[in-house]
């Protein structure tokens, strides 16, 4: 059997590459990463009618093959290193000229190629007719018109691919003339490259020379490593040519090269390839929509409504499935509770595994709805408009218009989640802007912080809770943007990414595309919850459980219990301890006994927590934390909050011997806190500030490390945020107390 054929899919962003990939591979795909970078690598396979299996690799969408960001480097490295049998270049027929710029570069590299002329339906709607055979003749490669969205023409496309692959053609680089000056230099450089056999096992000689002239930093670095002398000689020619062009024409070699490439494309298009029914200036539907949606006054208003709609959609529709999942985990918890004997195993399974991982998985429906909503905004083209409208504001903070979505998803309108927010930063091209964004999105008020904020504002600012919550949202934005700015002028200083972007035409998203998009991202989230979070939850459980109370302490409480029971008449004890007794139906003395026993249980839990590693840490930290007004119980809760922020509420409940407190029903906890002498509005506000800004939850830290490509950044976020939050909380507390606001 012959080895399977490998086909690489390449093209401009928005040309329909993902759609074609999905149409060809169906559900048979695998998402990974290109080695060493966070660029997604999708692979799948297509089975031809003859039974041949064709592997399909989806290359990142790019406009060019010259290094601009990691995408271009990944795409061309794949081509020269893996040498796929055929490259399918997907080209947007409704925007042919610009798309052929990349095609030309593939021709110059010489890869065996088939052009998939996509969006034929859009082109004909716009009155653009394309003579595909003529184009194929002029380019010298097969051209197949398709409509990826309805799979029209894909069988013909793959037949052309197979036919080409079976000829096993040699790479055949196209030579474009770049004008007299550059052609002469190129010839010398080419000879030198050939004579030195400089990188010729990888790149065609002329292509390499052109990349040097284009000042492609990645290729030049690689060249210098391979053969410093040969590389320096090439640099010398480039310098001469640059100086000459600067003197005579005030331009750059790369500009001349680009001009000639476009000249080559124009000369092809003029040869009866393309004809237009309408004037090229005619407004397309998409432009008309933009007149409203990006209108100076209406635009921002509509944006606000759309974003609020996204929230409403996510939170109202996900409420039910979230409740179902919660119920499911509740059942699991009960099942284990009934099956296993009391002991560490049971406690670990329930408090460590189910509550920890369940807490994360419980968010899955919410995340799925959020991703689905975002996929709609993205696939329809609206997201690019949001970036366009917000860019000016974000640039003041050293960020990019495209950062907006990450913040909003993370809780910019209160109640998102930083995990998808961190993942949403993938669309940012500049590494520094991306890092500044993903390190600050966790400052937003995500859904897990809300129970804590609601509890505390409800208890201490009950009269103007809504206003305080709104203020906290503004505070989150201010802090996130200012810290981003701080990063951008210190550790992440650097140029901003150009905003030279395409506003893709508005398109109706397909359900299939949306579902695939949503599922891919949700699955990544689930995978994370299943592994790292499991380990962290178990660790935190162990810290809050061990060492257990010494025997004597248990015995003392047991003795108290027995004493208590003995003080009641026998029939009351019998009534209270009967199986399935319902406290509301019991006689007054029996109910009273049960309540008192319950108090003892809680006291035992509180002591156990105090005695555990977490409790000791909490106590040890009290020396520092009291500057912000936090006692040891609060400290334990904050340590627990590292698993997930809503755990702060339940741990506070345990620490204040309230037994298991349901985050949703924290009324009694609020009353306890209000009555506690340690607590006052200033301390509560300091705590709110701390919870908002301290270390991101463990899931987010894992995501930050993953997305930033190094654990260093995950640890940095934990350290920096905690110190920063503590500073801020201390400031609030000390100032507030000094002003006598503590009541």
């Amino acid at each position, binding site marked *: 059997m012959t080895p399977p054929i490998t086909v690489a899919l390449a093209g401009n962003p928005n040309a329909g590459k993902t759609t074609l990939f999905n149409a060809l591979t169906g559900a048979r795909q695998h998402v990974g990463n290109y080695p060493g970078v966070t660029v997604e690598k999708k692979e799948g396979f297509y089975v031809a009618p003859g039974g041949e299996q064709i592997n399909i690799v989806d290359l990142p969408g790019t*406009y060019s093959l010259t290094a601009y960001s990691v995408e271009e480097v990944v795409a061309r490295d794949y081509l020269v290193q893996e040498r796929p049998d055929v490259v399918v270049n997907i080209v947007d027929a409704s925007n042919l000229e610009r798309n052929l710029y990349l095609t030309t570069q593939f021709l110059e590299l010489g890869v065996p190629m088939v052009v998939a002329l996509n969006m034929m339906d859009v082109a004909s709607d716009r009155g*653009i007719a394309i003579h595909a055979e003529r184009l194929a003749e002029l380019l010298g490669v097969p051209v197949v018109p398709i409509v990826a969205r309805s799979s029209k023409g894909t069988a013909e496309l793959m037949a052309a691919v197979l036919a080409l692959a079976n000829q096993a053609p040699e790479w055949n680089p196209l030579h474009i003339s770049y004008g007299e000056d550059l052609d002469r230099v190129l010839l010398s450089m080419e000879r030198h490259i050939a004579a030195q056999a400089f990188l010729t096992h990888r790149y065609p000689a002329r292509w390499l020379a052109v990349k040097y002239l284009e000042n492609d930093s990645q290729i030049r670095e690689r060249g210098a490593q391979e053969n410093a002398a040969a590389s320096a000689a090439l640099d010398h020619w480039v310098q001469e040519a640059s100086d000459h062009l600067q003197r005579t024409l005030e331009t750059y070699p790369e*500009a001349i090269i680009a001009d000639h490439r476009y000249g080559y494309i124009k000369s092809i298009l003029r040869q009866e390839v393309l004809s237009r029914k309408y004037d090229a200036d005619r407004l397309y539907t998409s432009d008309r929509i933009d007149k409203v949606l990006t209108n100076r006054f209406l*635009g921002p208003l509509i944006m606000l409504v759309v974003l609020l709609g996204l929230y409403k959609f996510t939170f109202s529709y996900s409420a039910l499935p979230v409740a179902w999942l919660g119920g499911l985990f509740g059942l699991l918890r009960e099942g284990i509770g009934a099956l296993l004997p009391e002991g560490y195993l049971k406690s670990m399974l329930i408090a460590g595994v189910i509550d920890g991982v369940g807490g994360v998985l419980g968010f899955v429906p919410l995340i799925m709805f959020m991703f689905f909503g975002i996929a709609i905004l993205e696939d329809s083209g609206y997201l690019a408009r949001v970036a366009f409208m917000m860019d000016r*504001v974000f640039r003041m903070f050293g960020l990019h218009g495209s950062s907006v979505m990450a913040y909003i998803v993370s809780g910019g309108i209160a109640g998102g989640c930083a995990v998808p927010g961190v993942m949403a930063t993938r669309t940012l091209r500049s590494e520094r802007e991306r890092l500044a964004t993903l390190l600050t999105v966790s400052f937003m008020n995500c859904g897990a912080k809300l129970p804590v904020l609601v509890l505390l504002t409800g208890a201490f600012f009950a009269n103007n809770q809504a206003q305080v919550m709104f203020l906290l949202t503004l505070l989150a934005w201010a802090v996130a943007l200012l810290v981003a700015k701080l990063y951008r002028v210190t550790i992440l200083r650097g140029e901003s990414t*150009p*905003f*030279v972007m*395409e506003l893709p035409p508005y398109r109706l998203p397909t359900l299939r595309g949306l579902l695939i998009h949503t599922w891919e991202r949700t699955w990544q989230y689930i995978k994370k919850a299943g592994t790292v979070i499991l380990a962290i939850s178990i660790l935190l459980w162990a810290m809050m459980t061990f060492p257990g109370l010494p025997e004597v302490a248990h015995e003392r409480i047991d003795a108290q219990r027995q004493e208590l029971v003995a003080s009641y008449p026998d029939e009351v004890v019998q009534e209270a301890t009967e199986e399935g007794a319902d406290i509301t139906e019991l006689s007054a003395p029996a109910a009273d006994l049960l309540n008192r026993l319950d108090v003892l249980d809680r006291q035992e839990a509180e002591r156990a927590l105090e005695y555990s590693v977490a409790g000791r840490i909490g106590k040890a930290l009290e020396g520092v934390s009291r500057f912000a007004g936090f006692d040891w119980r609060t400290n334990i809760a904050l340590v627990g909050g590292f698993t997930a922020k809503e755990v702060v509420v339940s741990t506070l409940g345990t620490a204040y011997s309230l037994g298991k407190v349901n985050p949703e029903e924290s009324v009694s906890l609020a009353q306890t806190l209000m009555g506690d002498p340690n607590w006052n509005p200033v301390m509560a506000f300091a705590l709110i500030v701390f919870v908002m800004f301290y270390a991101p939850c463990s899931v987010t830290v894992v995501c930050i490390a993953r997305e930033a490509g190094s654990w260093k950044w995950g640890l940095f976020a934990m350290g920096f945020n905690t110190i920063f939050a503590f500073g801020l909380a201390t400031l609030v507390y000390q100032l507030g107390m000094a002003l006598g606001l503590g009541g």
Partner: protein
Amino acid sequence: MPRMMLRQMKRGQSGVIAAVKVGGELGRRIRDMGLVPGTQITVQGRAPLYDPVALRVLDSTLTLRNNEADHIEVDVS
């Protein structure tokens, strides 16, 4: 045809790019996106805060910031 900087062009105004005077990463990006001398462009609109600007180029819509547009000279028709 009067020549002016892209930044000064009004909404709805059209012209042909005369020169792109920037090298490096930004220059490359601008050219990759089809903004080369000889290309016909129309200013389609501006963001609410007047920056960035949206251009109709070839058959697509591109955006760029005003300080990026400063490198582009246009022969206005």
